[in-house]
């Protein structure tokens, strides 16, 4: 009997809490991407791209007038006020838990990004696997461009980064990677950079450059070829093609896998670095029948030289910029921490002087479904 009397009281306690901390899904703004940029007058501009679910998920396909997303742009003195401002503007709570992209404006990047990124690192709703991208140009304009299939710009950019990862090298930097990069001894790292492709119509976005960061400041850019070389060193190449040969006598190789091993030797009080790249490839294009006529070994040699050249180029450019985005310094630190302590402060100079040995070993596993070219030339 006493127990039964207790039940209404217990029920009251349940009801007293109400629906505490509940948020109705219909009153929520699903943020897909959030970006910041430094304005002319030194304030911060925050852009939040919010999805319009009813247009995205409508079965009939949204008519051209209906937008799939809304960009809220707010300029404030600090990033917290700016994010709060977007909440006020959208008149609903921003849900950052589905955020798929963090965008950094180029001006903010050149100025130093940590004071902004601190907000994202501390915010509990943001996932640690959210990719980060640098935006070259007006962020507001970039966040208006989408493709036919991916109708939300943030998803579009995200997919571009993924595609680049498959074809060139895994340049994707997630929030967690970014935090790790900030802890690096050598302080240098790369972030993908997106810009509007002016030549394309309808407007499209490209990732043809990569931003080079030293600590939390952007110090320059590298081209896609240099990036490829850097990815070979960083062991982040998953696939893509390597073309060798001049003009119309080219052979196209497609990479099946690539493995890089960096070994460091500091015995003679000098940093000696050896980069060993092992790749498996298969022939993709050989219209001139070069493999048959010149032999497998020769073409293999050519391919190895080509990769070595790419890597050497990347290292040369890094030396010019003075940023060790290959993390060689990390390898030295891992190999010999006491030695690293001594040279740590001079690493910028030492890095400019190092001459890594690059060894490339390719294995042609397959020449496709043809033994030799299918085109029979008529004897003249």
């Amino acid at each position, binding site marked *: 009997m006493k127990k039964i009397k207790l039940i209404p009281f217990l029920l009251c306690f*349940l009801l007293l809490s109400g*629906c505490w901390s509940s*948020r*109705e899904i*219909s009153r929520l703004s699903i943020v897909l991407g959030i970006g910041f940029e430094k304005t002319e007058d030194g304030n911060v501009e925050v852009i939040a791209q919010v999805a319009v679910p009813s247009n995205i998920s409508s079965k009939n396909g949204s008519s051209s007038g209906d937008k799939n997303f809304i960009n809220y742009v707010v300029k404030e003195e600090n990033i917290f006020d700016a994010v709060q401002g977007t909440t006020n503007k959208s008149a609903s709570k921003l849900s950052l838990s589905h955020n798929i992209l963090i965008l950094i404006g180029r001006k903010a990047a050149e100025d130093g990004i940590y004071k902004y990124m601190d907000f994202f690192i501390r915010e509990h709703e943001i996932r640690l696997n959210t990719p980060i991208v640098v935006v070259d140009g007006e962020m507001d304009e970039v966040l208006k461009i989408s493709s036919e299939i991916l109708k939300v710009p943030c998803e579009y950019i995200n997919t571009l980064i993924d595609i680049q990862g498959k074809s060139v090298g895994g340049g994707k930097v997630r929030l967690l990677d970014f935090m790790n990069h900030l802890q690096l001894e050598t302080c240098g790292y790369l972030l993908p950079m997106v810009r509007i492709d002016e030549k394309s119509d309808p407007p499209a976005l490209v990732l043809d450059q990569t931003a080079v960061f030293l600590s939390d400041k952007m110090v320059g850019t590298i081209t896609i070829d240099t990036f490829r070389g850097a990815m070979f060193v960083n062991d982040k190449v998953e696939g893509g093609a390597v073309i060798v040969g001049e003009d119309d006598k080219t052979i196209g190789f497609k990479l099946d896998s690539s493995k890089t091993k960096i070994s460091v030797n500091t015995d003679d009080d000098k940093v000696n670095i050896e980069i060993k790249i092992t790749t498996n490839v298969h022939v993709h294009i050989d219209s001139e029948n070069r493999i048959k006529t010149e032999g497998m070994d020769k073409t293999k040699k050519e391919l190895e030289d080509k990769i070595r050249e790419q890597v050497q180029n990347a290292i040369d450019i890094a030396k010019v910029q003075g940023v060790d985005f290959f993390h060689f310094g990390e390898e030295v630190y891992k190999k010999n921490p006491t030695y690293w302590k001594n040279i740590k402060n001079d690493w910028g100079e030492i890095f400019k002087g190092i001459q890594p040995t690059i060894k490339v070993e390719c294995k042609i596993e397959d020449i496709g479904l043809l033994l030799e070219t299918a085109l029979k030339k008529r004897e003249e």
Partner: protein
Amino acid sequence: MLEKFVKKVTGYFTSHDHLNGKDILIDDDVKMSKKLDKNIEILKASMGGSVDFIVREINSGDSKLAFFYIDGLIDSMKLEQNILKPLLSLENSIESIEDLVRKYLPSSEIKITEKLSEACQGFLSGDTVIMVNGISNSVIVNTKGYETRSVNDPQTDSVIKGPREGFIENIRTNTALIRRKIKDTSLRLESFTVGERSKTAVAIMYIKDVANPELIKKIRDKINEIEVDAIYDSGYIQQYIECNPGSLFDTVGYTEKPDIAAAKIMEGRVAILVDGSPFVLTAPMLFIESFQSPEDYYIHPAAATSLRIVRFLSYFISILALPLYVAIATFHHEMAPLSLMYTMAASEADTPFPVVIEAVLMIITFEILKESGVRLPKPVGQAVSIVGALVIGESAVTAGFIAAPMVIAVAITAVSAFVIPTQANAMVLLRYIMLFLSGTMGGFGITIGILFFLMHLTSLRSFGIPYLSSFAPYNTSDMKDTLIRAPLYTLLTRPSGLTRNNPRRQKFKKIWENKNEKN
């Protein structure tokens, strides 16, 4: 306060009984008189002039005899052939009642009694009572002949492969159906009469050397303790003998099929049969029994195992699908993948109610539809289902009342509830509780709810055996017949706990090797 009220109410009823008691009530130990006229007078008075109570007096030989029976309960052919015909052709006078039985009555089922109350019960249950002037004994001859349903396909426990006969309302047929499955001398049948006025026949069946004697004693005692005026169905007995009546979960099982009842008796359980009910109770009942179907044992073990997993899955879906949907939509948005988030947000955007209210409305609507579908006459039922499907499924969504994913969640909840019919009633309440918890506290509430019910289930006992047996307390050999159904030749022992003295079901035999030798 409450006690006073109870006293008042019970007082009213007892005094009411006295008002009706103008007619003569026959006590249990009243004996017959030697004078036939007096006996007739008493019986007529006690029946109070009911028109279906027939008293027929005949003179045969030198004796004066009387028959008592209830019109409609007897088979007149039996009465004529077995009683009237031989008794009308008597030549000598009857010395004693044994004399009458031995020489003249060709009926196979005969009982002699000197108590008037037993005689009353005899003709009230369809027998004919014969009294002879000058003898203080009466004979009860079986002339039962009332209409019963024939043994056919039961409505519940239906199987694709397996026996199709089902119990009927007649207890004697039901005991015979079980006897036919187990032709063993140690299969015992004990009978009771429950209900002061209904005098319903109740029987328990068990195997003497398999069932736990303590269990039999416990059930026997509980049935004897029942003091109620009438019993109409085995559901009455089920509620009176249940060990934990406050619990949502049934601790007594029921079945409509003799093969299930026989299998449970073989495992050491006790079957309780009630006259007038096609449902046979089995006790004790464990949680796992709800997920076992007789068909599991008639088909390939792998197929049976996959069915078991489906049943467990649908049990959890039926309880948790809706609460989880509510929790994700109101508390844990980050748990939904982005594309699902779009769909949910898009469909919830235009609806007027919060998600939890929507869920409660939908589940109540479903319960209404289900209840009306069960109760309504069959031709109307179709109309109800059309209205239900159209109004709830289609129009509510197009009108923007209810979100489409909610309809899906409710539909899967409803459909999976029917997979485990024995738990269905508990599941309805469980679902409401979980829905309330998830609506107020989200995933945290669901966790609390699950923990609470797990605690309750582990503490629950059915006739002394832990309800979650073989899971908690864990028993490896019993696990062979839970989530998986191992091949029959590996199920060597009966479920532990049920039987003390005879746990072994079969000897271990390598049947696959024997086969190879033959080939």
